């Protein structure tokens, strides 16, 4: 078995069985693998070429999980984990960037000009993250669908498989989640501006 497979597999099972702590332990492992793979792809791909996102996660999954011995749901769990890892990474980064900008110190923050998340994107991401957290409180599945699709980069079918629901349900839930989040963020902006 490849590196970390046993622990990731076990953690996925734990998480699937409702152990929230397992997620905290999975994220760093998944993060590390995604990062490694992403770097690998980035070096190979031409600039501007879009990463095949689900391929990346799939590959991470194959590497990290003893998939032959897992229930099929574990793959879905893994995708959800990957999406959550991504979300954390993004938001963490965005928050820091946002903070650094607003900090207003005389010393210029040395940040990578090539950083992919623009200032506007950073603010948006933070807002979205907050809104997603609110949505999760009233409708966890919709929050998960957004995570998988928007952050995890899965299409409708993949999302459906990951959550063990029909693609039609994903579509329906997606549209109300999107509306809800959009409204939440707009309202937030309005209040901020007021």
């Amino acid at each position, binding site marked *: *078995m490849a590196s970390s497979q046993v622990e990731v597999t076990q953690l996925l099972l734990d998480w699937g069985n409702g152990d929230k702590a397992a997620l905290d332990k999975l994220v760093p492992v998944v993060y590390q693998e995604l990062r490694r793979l992403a770097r690998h792809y980035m070096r190979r791909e031409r600039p501007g070429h879009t990463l095949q996102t689900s391929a990346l996660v799939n590959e991470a999954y194959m590497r990290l999980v003893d998939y032959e011995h897992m229930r099929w749901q574990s793959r879905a769990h893994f995708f959800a984990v990957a999406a959550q890892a991504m979300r954390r990474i993004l938001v963490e*980064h965005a928050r820091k960037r946002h903070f*650094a900008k607003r*900090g207003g110190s005389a010393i210029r923050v040395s940040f*990578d000009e090539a950083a992919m998340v623009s200032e506007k994107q950073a603010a948006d991401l933070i807002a979205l993250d907050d809104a997603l957290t609110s949505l999760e409180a009233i409708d966890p599945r919709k929050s998960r669908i*957004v995570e998988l699709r928007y952050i995890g980069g899965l299409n409708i079918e993949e999302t459906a498989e990951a959550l063990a629901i029909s693609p039609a349900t994903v579509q329906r839930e997606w549209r109300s989640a999107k509306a809800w989040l959009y*409204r939440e963020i707009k309202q937030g902006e309005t209040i901020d501006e007021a």
Partner: protein
Amino acid sequence: MRPDRWRQIDEIFQAALDRVPAERAGFLDHACKSDPSLRREVESLIDSAENAGSFIEDPVFKEAAELVANSETESLVGRQLGPYTMTAVLGSGGMGEVYLAQDGRLGRRVALKLLPRYFTEDEQRLRRFQQEARAASALNHPNIITIFEIGQVDSIRFLATEYIEGETIRQRLSGAGFTVREALDIAIQIASALHAAHQAGIIHRDIKPENIMIRSDGYVKVLDFGLAKLPDTHGVPENTESPTAPQVDTDPGTVLGTVNYMSPEQARGSTLDSRTDLFSLGVVLYEMITARPPFEGKTAGELIPLIVSKEPPPLARYSNEAPDALQWIVTKALRKDREERYQTARDMMVDLRRLKQELEFEAARAQVITPNTGDPIATQTRAQDVIDTGDRQVIRTGDAAALTTSSTEVILSEIKRHKKGAALAAILLMAIVVGAGLWLNKLVNQRARPTPFQTMQLAPFTAIGKAAEAAISPDGKYVAYAIDDEGQQSLWLKQAATGSNVSLTPPAVGTRYRGLTFSRDGNYLYYLKREGGNTRAALYQIPTLGGEPRKMIDDVSTDNTPGIVAFSPDGKQMALVRSAGVTRSLLVMNVDGSGERNLVTAELAAKGQFVAGAAWSPDNKTIACVRGAFGFTRSVTLLAVNVADGVERSFSSERWARINAFAWLPDASGMILSAARADGPLQLWHVAYPSGEVHRITNDLNHYFGVSLTTDGSTLVTVQKNASSYLWIGPSAEPARAERATAESNDYDQLCWTPDGRIIFVSAAGDNSGIWSIKPDGSGKTQLTANAAFPAVSADGRYIYFSSERGADGPGHALWRMESDGGHPTVLLSGAETAACTPDGKWVIYSARSDRNIFLWKLPTAGGEPARLTDKDIAERPAVSPDGKFIACNYLIPGPNGQFRIAIISISGGEPVKIFDVPSFAIRELRWTPDSHAITYVDTRRSVSNLLAQPIDGGAPKQLTDFQSDYIYSWSWSGDGKQLAIARGAQTSDVVLIRDFR
């Protein structure tokens, strides 16, 4: 919004969107007809849906992936966070960053750890974390990093801690590494930190080289207390127990890093308690010594099974410097079953500290004899030993073979040659006295008096301090030994050449091993195992090179002397003593237990007689055994039994108080014996055969348990038990501030002060036993009288009362009086034991045996008849309160399971006015506190003694001292109550190898 409300909105929203826009208003009229707020909600959502456009339709994954790929995240160096200015990055991982920052308010540098957002989002978890971090910040301990603040600025939460300049154990491991002493020093400090944390109910759970900083001044700081379980939702330890799941490091760079240091219960995901930290400390200690982790695997999947079930390789495989005791400590810390592990950090700390002291002592001794590092001797100091025999001492340096027989000559000439010869000689001689407890004049005299055993060399084989029994294999390659750790015994096998040490049986409560013997071919170790309170043992056999123990024979006797099992020279037969009811029989049988033949029988019932032990002579003619009678002193003799016909004859006419063990010399010219002539310690003797002539081999204060010889007779293995005792003097109010008054160890017992500020004590030190006087600064040590004990100083300081065997009519003691300088000793009366003086100077209180009881009496000091104070039960060792009102004594009400308790009796006698229920099987020394409010006694737990004070008006006993090591032998307050003298010391027991003892 409540989830059910949202569900309602969502349903209507979906249904509305399923309709064409024109139909929606009508649908909503119907669906929300009685709920205008519901309609507003749905309409605003529909509005959002129509305006959202491409919102979140393009996955952000691409950016995320790119970000992940380029995630050398931007630094906050130079930025301000509240009062802190970040000046440098100290470290970062995927889930958190640490900055060096300047606190603008206090001008101090701090380490600032930024908590990852996802972590702080979960309020419940955050609360638990804060709770724990606060608890950890309350830990005020020099070896625990100080937490200054748990704070928040904007959305960033952080932890400000003490900034430590130094390196982590991990950094040092990849650099210079550690010497054994450094590793010990660091481990002691970690154990001390853990002790404090565990006391406060905090488990670290993540002790690893990355989490321990070594400051440049040598101070060790344990990091991340309270942070250790940052990624754990299960949270707070309650009663130091809390569940956890297998934990992976939060730092993506070292995913497997933590697994290496996990305890088996952690790896299994079981409930954790504080003992998990002790396992992890064991792993860290192992790695500091060997520069590699005890369990090695590439993945957690490989590692976890090793942690759960595999014993790590012995330290000796990777380190030539690791002493046995360290192996032992590490093994105990790394026990898979936490019940067999160190139970508290303090226990581990005590063992580590003891070992460190031993090593320091050895090093100091080595320095003393190696003044000039260019010398051949100086190059060989590492294994230098002090050798003692009855009549001479030899200091052996390095490999014995490298030196001629007269090592002493070499060293003495070395001393003479040296410029600072005289001073050096003094130090050397002192070191010898300290080391061996012997007198230096023997060293000076030795060349003039050549004796047998002239070239004896004694070398420590273990340095555990807890050895109980030992045996050497016939070829001398292995030594098997038992360790007694606070009543838990375990068996070990150590290879003499490599020092590799293997555990044969795990420690078990109530199990005692005796009579360790190798089979003649060395393939098996035989031992007697006694369980519970059973005096009869079972004989077991275990393969020397690994395997399961097998029970061979039940009911082997172990009374009085160890039930040694002896093998015939051809190895086909064995001799042992069987216990059957009131009969003890010396039997010979085949090694498989068949063909049993009775050689000697003793009837316990008729005469209280027993036979014990067996040693088969190399010429196959004679089996030596012990015959004795219970209940009398000096009543044990050695027998020589003819193997062929069982005819007995006396081996030697010497009568012994105790014989512990014996073994034949290979030429059948005699035996080596571990025995005591009187109450003194068990010593080694040579008894010639058939002449029966006795020669003393050792003459010191140590006990020697067991005698085991190699087939060629070149090497003898025994267990040497050594008790040190020093005098400590300190202010009564703060016994912790006591200082050691005496440089050398002696036997200090039964302390009492004189009104003029001297301390009277009793020493049972060999030829010098008796009552002595010393000044509190350790000077002016003088012997007042010999063969005497239990001194009591009169209130005016003029007389010392004591008891002695001298002057007694029959067995027992007599009460004596002498002047305080030892002059004019006078016998006052026979049959009296321990005495105490009343503060008015009018009476001496003493105990005396009367048939089956022991009563208290008082004797007028001005002369006259004694008067009886008690008339029932057993009252011993009286102590009179300083106010003169009460007598405290050891009190036993005869009956089954009778134990001594502490009784308070009026000075005028009668029944006890109070009995405190602090049971003890042994008679205790008792001392009143100077204010007469409490009675104090020694409480010893896990080899550590402290003083307890029992208030006489009731209530719980109060602990007066907080010693972490050593036994207390005696203590006494000065007449003005301001000073407290305490005699304290350690007891160690180790396997020693003796060569050239003939």
